[in-house]
């Protein structure tokens, strides 16, 4: 699991590489929590290198989305592989997340 953060056009782009399973989830959770606590309002998560996500992984993003919405911020997911997209879709979460094809698109959104 590798997590990189980069500030871009007033947003923080988080690039995750690896499997977001039970262990991966807590790493992602810590990283996103840190960004939210530093006061950032817009987070873009680049999923291009994510092979797998479990239900504990979904929980991390649900929790982040709730927190950001409460403070008037936004969370945008982009570049999801078909399998990862399906996991979000099966749980019905594609209804509440803004999902974009590319990082550029997400930054404009």
């Amino acid at each position, binding site marked *: 699991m590798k997590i990189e953060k980069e500030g871009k056009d007033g947003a923080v782009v988080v690039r995750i590489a690896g499997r977001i399973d039970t262990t991966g989830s807590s790493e992602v959770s810590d990283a996103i929590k840190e960004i939210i606590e530093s006061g950032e309002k817009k987070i873009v998560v680049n999923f291009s290198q994510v092979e797998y996500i479990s*239900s*504990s992984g979904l*929980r991390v993003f*649900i929790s982040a989305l*709730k927190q950001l919405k409460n403070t008037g911020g936004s969370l945008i997911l982009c570049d999801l592989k078909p399998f990862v997209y399906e996991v979000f*879709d*099966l749980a*019905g*979460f594609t209804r*509440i997340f803004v999902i974009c094809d590319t990082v550029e698109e997400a930054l404009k959104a």
Partner: protein
Amino acid sequence: MSSILTGDLWLHLFEMLCVIIVVAYFITRTKAFITVHEGKGSVTDYGVLILIFGALSIYGTMSGFAILGAPVNIRDLGPLVAGITCGPVVGGVAGIIGAVYRLSLGGFTAIPCTIATSISGFAGGAIYLLHKRQMISVRWAVLFAALFECFHLILVLCINSDMDTAVSIVSQVAGPLVFFNALGMGIFAKIAENRIEEVRTRGERDRYKSELDRKRAELKIAKEIQQQFLPKDIPPITGYDLATFSLPAWEIGGDFYDIIPFGNQKHGLIIADVSGKSIPAALFMALSKITVRSTAVWHPGTAETLRDANDIIANESDSGMFVTVFYGILDRMGERMVYTNAGHNPPLVYRRKTDSFEYLRQNGMALGVMTGTGYEQDEVTLHPGDIVVFYTDGVTEAINRNEEQFGLERLTSVVSASRDMTSYQIIRQIEEEMSGFCKDEPQFDDITIMVLKAKGDD
């Protein structure tokens, strides 16, 4: 120093060290040593230790030997050790015993030696107290013994009747005296330290074990309570054959199923999976199960039921926890099932006539995420011989040693192969196939399966 040590002296020193090792081992193995060290000793414990350490001090005097005519002994060692391991009472009294014996022998250095030995045990005890009733490390104990012997020698220089003789004795014995007492202390302290550490580790282990036993007992009760949340027996449903199976990965889990008889030949079927495992999942499961069951009684449709259940659960949950729920209502009259799938793994529908599968996909979001989300209701018609398999992701995501997942394909092929069996037998087949696939790989997630077979008119 080897030049001044003859063969006899080496033998003598070796004998002395053996005695120290044996005595150290013996003392540290007594119950009294540990209880007194921990400050919990009885009067008898103190008495026993005082006598042993006092005797060691007397042995120290008796085993003394002469190097170039100067007396070298380890009289102070017993009281010093007693002090740093068992405190000022044991150390002090043992020192006085050794000192009285030394005084009775008389001689040129009788007074300073008596004073030094009297003080030795109290000095060790003071260190024990200063170190919060803990033994100091072996290295510091050795340094302490060496410094104390230096102090002993200074006393000889200060209190004597003839300075020239005193200087001559001190200059000859200083090296060996400091060296052998420090060496003896090193051996003794190391043995005592090992023993104290051993007792401490065992205490920690015992405490940990009793805590573990308590937790295990609590989990067992929690498991029994959770078992009572699941339907005790499956009500017969005219025209259908229904069987269920549930196996949590830990004692308790987040999966559940429910069968609600509504009357008028209608039955509600629920299967659900809480995100997460073990205790947090079990708590959330209890909340979800009761909420869905209560709202189901109020609404005739599945969508309104889950919409209300979602509003209630989402209001109670800030942690990002959610629960995927499939809720269907079987209506015997039309051989149909209306359903709402709130983000749950799509149940499989095996069509007997075409030997093919359909999926009851989500038409609403998992419950507990946010209030005010919409749910739809769809409908599926079931014909005789059709089989519906409801399951949680513990089935398809079960892994084998190579981390391959059991997967949907294996599941569908078992169901298709056992199409002529009863629901109960189909579940057995799935179980068998899974255990053959996973072998010894431990179960990672809760597994729940519910199989419904449409029998037609019988």
